[in-house]
């Protein structure tokens, strides 16, 4: 039987690890290559790097980070942040990323998903969605809206409709990132995650809000997620990757337990 996945997300700014709280006030917390290696050796199932470098002239630093990580971490490596074209995706793939995450640029130009899927394969294109709860309206009948640019710009697009459109355009996987829950450590947005996971046939990754091991359990059971993404829980040393996996395993969630 397929295991649920524990994924760690490393936000990287100018080549250094950063972690945001509600998408503002980012602070540097270490060397991404060293962290990646540490998590890999402790049983992490997958790694995501998110490039939050503001200026495009520093993008090369990210490619160097990806390359350094890919040389010593032998699990799937996913990279996102600022991917606007097939060329961006291809550069990251050559540097060693398995999967490419698209987010804001795909909302602004949905054809990007299809173009990337065609170029690098459906299974390697991940649609990352930043989502905010809103009042139900004609534009957002699900009560969830897509926001972009790190949560700053609401788009008036319904999250459920966008998830289905992303799947149709060829995304191989979805990241459901709740802006409301992000950085709060109060738990994932379970209702949102469940709604989207049940609506699509592709795997869904819950993101944003994990603070305790039971939050992971809830997302994988009630939230019907195929994988959970963690950041601050492991970055600050509150929990070890192996500890979280052992916890989930003991509660009956199928996890990969030998590494």
């Amino acid at each position, binding site marked *: 039987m*397929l295991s649920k996945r524990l994924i760690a997300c490393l936000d990287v700014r100018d080549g250094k690890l950063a972690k945001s709280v509600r998408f503002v006030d980012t602070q540097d917390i270490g060397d991404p290559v060293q962290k990646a290696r540490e998590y890999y050796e402790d049983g992490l199932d997958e790694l995501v790097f998110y490039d939050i470098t503001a200026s495009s002239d520093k993008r090369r630093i990210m490619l160097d980070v990806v390359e350094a990580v890919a040389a010593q971490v*032998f699990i799937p490596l996913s990279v996102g942040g600022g991917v606007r074209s097939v060329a961006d995706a291809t550069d990251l793939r050559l540097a060693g990323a398995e999967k490419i995450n698209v987010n804001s640029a795909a909302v602004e130009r949905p054809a990007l998903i299809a173009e990337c899927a065609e170029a690098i394969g459906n*299974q390697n294109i991940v649609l990352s969605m930043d989502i905010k709860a809103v009042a139900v309206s004609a534009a957002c009948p699900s009560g969830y809206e897509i926001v972009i640019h790190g949560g700053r710009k609401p788009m008036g697009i319904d999250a459920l409709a966008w998830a289905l459109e992303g799947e149709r355009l060829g995304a191989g*996987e979805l990241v459901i990132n709740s802006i409301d829950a992000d950085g709060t450590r109060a738990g994932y947005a379970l209702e949102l995650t469940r709604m989207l996971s049940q609506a699509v*046939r*592709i795997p869904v990754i819950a993101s944003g809000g994990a603070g305790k091991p039971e939050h992971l359990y809830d997302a994988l059971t009630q939230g019907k997620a*195929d994988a959970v993404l963690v950041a601050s829980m492991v970055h600050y040393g509150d929990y070890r990757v192996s500890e979280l996996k052992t916890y989930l395993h003991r509660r009956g969630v199928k996890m990969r337990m030998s590494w």
Partner: protein
Amino acid sequence: MTVIIDYDAGNLRSVQRACAEVGLTAQITNDAHTIAHADRIIFPGVGAAGSAMKSLKAAGLDVALRHALGAGTPVLGICLGLQISLDHSEEGDTPTLGLIEGRVVRFRLDDPTLKIPHMGWNEVRVVKPHPLLRKIVPGDEFYFVHGYYPHPRRHADVYAETDYERAFASALGRNNYFATQFHPEKSGRVGLELLGCFATWDGQPC
């Protein structure tokens, strides 16, 4: 020399990096002569069967691969490399290499909550011993990502199975050819161990 066959089918450098980690220096090449005369061949690939077959044939790599197999060169197929070694793929209704009798079919799952592609870590159960699988112990999981799976005609060609609603063949082999549906290069320690076994494999199935 060990070669990784380059036929525009995905990220070959991750395979090369994992080989380097186990001390196997591998050259990525699309040169038919180099492949035909290599000491050891890795035949990886992700993507669609149809375009993969087209690229292989256009460069004469199918002929080179057959030549090497005939000469007893150890060959490791990975993912799409495995899939196009059978006779036919349902993906794009594509005739494939026919190194092993059988076909590749799309997952048709009764359980609507099971996702397609089959993506993530899953147990690889050894059903017949093989030198490349000798380090695997019960419970070891490997990384998979695929929407189609191999259905070989002869059970004798199946070395490992994996469950996704039903059991499917996750490792196949015959003589000096061996292939995995999973990605050893992305499967952490157990994957590296399999590649390490390949690095010294003499091409004999037992």
